[in-house]
Each structure stands twice: as C-alpha cells, then as structure tokens.
C-alpha cells in the first residue's frame, strides 16, 4: 500500500523500508532516514536520529489526522491513503465550502441569532458560545442559507459538533 503524508498542507510520499525493533528505515519525499523511535507514553514519542534526541507529541484529531507538537513548533499532519485519495477526488472543491458551524472546544450555546431557512450574509454572526467565562461569536464565511439548527440556547455542546447546517 502506498501512502502520502500532508504536513501543514505539503504532501509527500512516505514509506517504511525496514524495521528492526525500535529502529526503522524510512523514505519521506525521497529523503532516507534511519532512526530509533519509541512511544514512551501514549502519544509521546522519543526519537533518536544521528545522535539528536527529539520528543514528539501527537494529539489525534481523527484516525488519519494529528496535531503534532515538537519543542518549538506545531504541525497539522494527515495521512493520505488510497481511500483518502478516492474521497478527495470525489469531493473536488466541495469541502472548501462551509457546510456547518461548529466550535473547536466544548462549551454552552448562549444565543442563536438566526432561524431555519434564513438567508445570511458573509461575516454575519449565527451563534455565540461560552466556555471558561469567555463568549465567542461564530460567523458564516460566505453568503448562505441556514438549513437546520441542531442545538438550543443553553445547551452544552462538544468540540467540533455541528451546531447549524448551511446550504
């Protein structure tokens, strides 16, 4: 199976050539590495490469996506397998479009400012959500029509949960 990886949007091929215990030989975008990689705690890897010691922390976003932290930097990584390629080829540009409003963190819906079926303009605030004593406004990115409102004012929500769908 052939894989690619997207790191902060840049896609390159990736392949494990050999593995022996913790030691692996890998080809990334044509560059070959021999490294010693060990998951020391769940999601925390210790890597030794040419003597240097690296600590890499992974926070899975879904089963193919990670937020990755090193000492000084953060990255978004996504594994691209045959399935992803197929899905991407089918979706075309559609996933660029905003199809729903969600929040990155859990919180509580404070106010819903629109009704189902309402036409909304780019930049209009649709919903405000509070978390940790701070209220945030969530806006629509382009002219849309409100399809379904999935939550009620006062309701507690999870992070990344669709709140309002758009069409």
């Amino acid at each position, binding site marked *: 199976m052939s894989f690619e990886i997207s*790191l902060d949007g840049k896609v390159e091929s990736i392949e494990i050539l050999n593995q022996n215990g913790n030691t692996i030989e890998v080809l990334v975008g044509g560059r070959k590495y021999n*490294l010693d990689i060990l998951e020391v705690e769940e999601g925390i890897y210790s890597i030794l490469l040419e003597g240097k010691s690296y600590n890499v922390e992974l926070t899975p976003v879904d089963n193919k996506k990670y937020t990755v932290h090193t000492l000084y930097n953060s990255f978004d990584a996504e594994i691209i397998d045959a399935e992803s390629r197929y899905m991407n080829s089918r979706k075309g540009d559609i996933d660029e479009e905003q199809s729903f409003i969600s929040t*990155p963190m859990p919180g509580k819906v404070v106010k819903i400012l629109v009704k189902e079926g309402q036409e909304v303009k780019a930049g209009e605030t649709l919903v405000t959500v509070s978390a*940790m004593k701070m209220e945030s406004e969530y806006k629509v990115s382009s002219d849309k029509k409100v399809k379904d409102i999935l939550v009620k004012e006062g309701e507690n929500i999870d992070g990344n949960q669709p709140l309002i769908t758009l069409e």
Partner: protein
Amino acid sequence: MIKKILVANRGEIAIRVMRTCREMGIESAAVFSEADRSSMHVRFADEAYFIGEAPSNESYLVIDKIIAVAKRCKADAIHPGYGFLSENADFADRCEKEGIIFIGPSSFAINTMGDKITARKNMLKAGVPVVPGTSEPIKDIKEAVGLIMDIGLPVMVKASAGGGGKGMRLIKEENEIIAGVSAAKSEAKAAFGNDAVYIEKYINSPHHIEFQVLADKHGNCIHLFERECSVQRRHQKVVEETPSPIMTPEVRAEMGKYAVAAAKAVNYASAGTIEFIVDDDLNYYFLEMNTRLQVEHPITERVVGVDLVKEQINIANGKKLSLKQDELTQNGHAIEVRIYAEDPDNNFMPSPGLVKHITEPLGLGVRHDGYIYEGYNIPMYYDPLVSKLIVWAPTRNEAISRMKRALFAYKIVGIKTTIPFLSRIMDVPSFRKGKYNTHIIQDNQKYLEPKNTATQKIKDVVSITAFVDYINKIEAAKTNGKANAVASKWKMCGRTRNMNRL
C-alpha cells in the same frame, strides 16, 4: 483558634490554601459543584460537600449554600481564595453574623475599596497619591468638558463600580469628550447597573506595580515589597515578577509607606494588595486595592520567605504580626507565569477538555501550583487558569533562563495551553532588558506570534512519527479488532524489550 477551614473555592487556589492548612494542622473542607466531583481539591481536602449545579451562580457564588456547609461541617472559618466570593462584602458580613471567621478584611474595607470613587476620596484624605482627576461622579456631561480640560488631555473615563476594562473610555481630543463620557456612562449602566463615572488623567506607557501588605487586628501593618505586573493581555496579568526591574530603593520605600497608609486608612486586617500605576519617570499613583489574596502572591512568598496564607490565618486568629518591617528583605528574583487552557495560536480560544498527559517541571528554583492531573477533564464553566509556574534565582537573568528551562520541560498533552506563548514572552527583547510597560504584548506581536522555525529534518521527523503512530494503530486494529485496547506495536515492542532486558 481555628481548627477547621472551609475553602470556598476550587482549582489551584483551593489546593494552595489546603496545603497550608495541612502544614498548620488545621482540617480543610472542600465544596464542589456538579462539574467538580473529580476535581483535585475534592481529593485533597479532609472533607468535601456538594453545593449545586456547575454554573458558579448556582454553586460557588451562592452565599446560603456555602454558609450551610460551614455550619454542617462545623468549620470555624472560611477562606474565600480569589475570585468568587472573595471580595463580596455581603458574604463577609454574613460570616460575621453566623459566627464564622471570614479569612479576609472587614466588609467596611471591602466596600470602601470596592467603589472606585469612595476609594479615591479615602486615599486623598490619607495623603496617598492618586491619579489626577475627579473625586465626585460626573453628573452633567457638559460640566465634564471643563473638568477634563483642567486635568489636561488625554484622560480616561472610568465607571465607579467598574473593573476588567468595562465602562472605560480613553479621550485624546477635546471634540471626543461628550461622546466618550456618554458612551462610558451607558456602558457602566449596562455592565454594573450604575452609570456613575469619574475622570482620571491618562498615563502614557504605564507600568502596573502593586505592593503586598499584611495587617493584623491590632493596628500593625507592614508591606512585603512590590510585584511588577505590567505584562498584561486584555487587562489580564500574564507574567509577574519581583523585584520590579524599574524600581529604585528610594521609590520602593516611599511606595511601601503609602501602601501601608492606604491599608490603615480602611482599618485593613488581612493580606491585601495596593495597585499603583507608575509612569516611566517613576511617578506613581494609587489605582485600587485588591482586598484578597492575589493570584501572583507566590513570587512575594519566594523572595520575602513568608507563607501569606499562613499569615492570613494567623491574623484571622487574632494573632499579632510576627514579621517586622525592618527585618524583611527581598532575596533574589522571582517570576510567575500563568498557564491557561487557551489556544495561543488561535486568538486564545478557551480549551477545556481531557488532560491526557502531564510532565511537570521539577528541580532547583521551581515552584509549581496547579490542580490538574492525568485523566482530568477540565470543565468549561470556570476560569481557564490551570497552573502557575514560579521560579526563583539569585538574579533576574538567571530567573528568566530558569523559567525558559521550566517551560521547556512542562508538557500538557490533550488540551491547548499558553505555555508556548509564555516561552516567547521570555524572549521579547524589552522583557529581557526589563524595560517594558503594559503595552508590551500589543507592541511585540512580531515576537509573540508562532513562528515555524523547523528545519526539513524536523518536519520529516514529525511526518515519520505521525505515520508510525498511524501504522501502529492500523496493525493493532487488524490483529485485535479493537484499536483502543492495544498499546501501539512500537510501544509494546519497546516495553517488551525492556522487560527482556530485565
């Protein structure tokens, strides 16, 4: 003598108070809301009582519920921490009425200092310098023009009942006056139900410097020197240090005397903080008094060598202060940073949620006051402060290096935190030089934004790690049917090899 203290708070400050209780042989009782059953303060306390739903106005802010628990568990005293009921004069009164010791000042002191105009008047009477401005609420908007032109532009219009930047307007030009005062009044009305505003001269490039005071019930009052709190983001302190890098011994002595005078003016008896606004020429003006323990109290504890909570409890017990002003000194330099569950790369969006791993910074000169643990789910209802890191070193430069080392070693996986942002502050040139004012964060965005400095090699290491983890999970799922159940193959491999080596 106090034998049991109810701590009417949560998070790091509840635990910090309980630590001192334990050292003093005093029992501690926790209260907890529906969201806090698994919170560390419940586990750390000797006793714990449920007080209601998660929102604080149904639990931590309900005076009747707190008092009921105190009576039920026979607590002699209540420590309010900071925030919540700590500066609520009604609560202090209620405690007194119920025969429970409120570990804090009298309701008179809280009330006097809580209203800005009343506080200004009292400070003027006590001879404490205040920012030039008005001492009475502005009644007539037209009259404001003359007053403001007398004081001299620029000025700040402030709500008398205000705080946190609400009901404030900066006026730079004469033609802005009427609109500005009107806006401040209506904002004050909306925010505090009181449209009283007053006018203060606006201090350019201001420094925020505060003095810690301790006063007992026998009329003794001392100060424990200053804290420099100018590193602020949206009027919230982010980094504090002591001594202040701009302070001189002469000005320190003067300000300390005024801080003591300010506390005495309201018959203060507990730990309190006098905040001053200071300009580049070290002209200083009383800003307000915080009639409670401050978040940043540990840097004073470290440099002066006192336990401020212990002092509060001793004062509440009616003891005389054992510390003498002329025996106190500042030893070395301490810095505190506040670690929030916020995403510094995404407009400081709150980031509650499950804490997967923590590696705490240890070693020489590091104090850590926190409350989260691995597996803890940080609730969305309360303040995003997860911990405070306090370092000490003989010199300021060494303290900055130590803070950077501690932040380097501090890992919290699962939620976003401000750790990278704080680390970047340590590298801002004006911070390094100790030449900064409250504009430091807005003026140094270029140093504070995340920069991707990664080499191709580091990027490849990141790609490889993500890929290895992905492959591990796939293979685990294939052989096991349950991705969650299996530790990754690499992990197993590492562990097994370790075991074999044994």
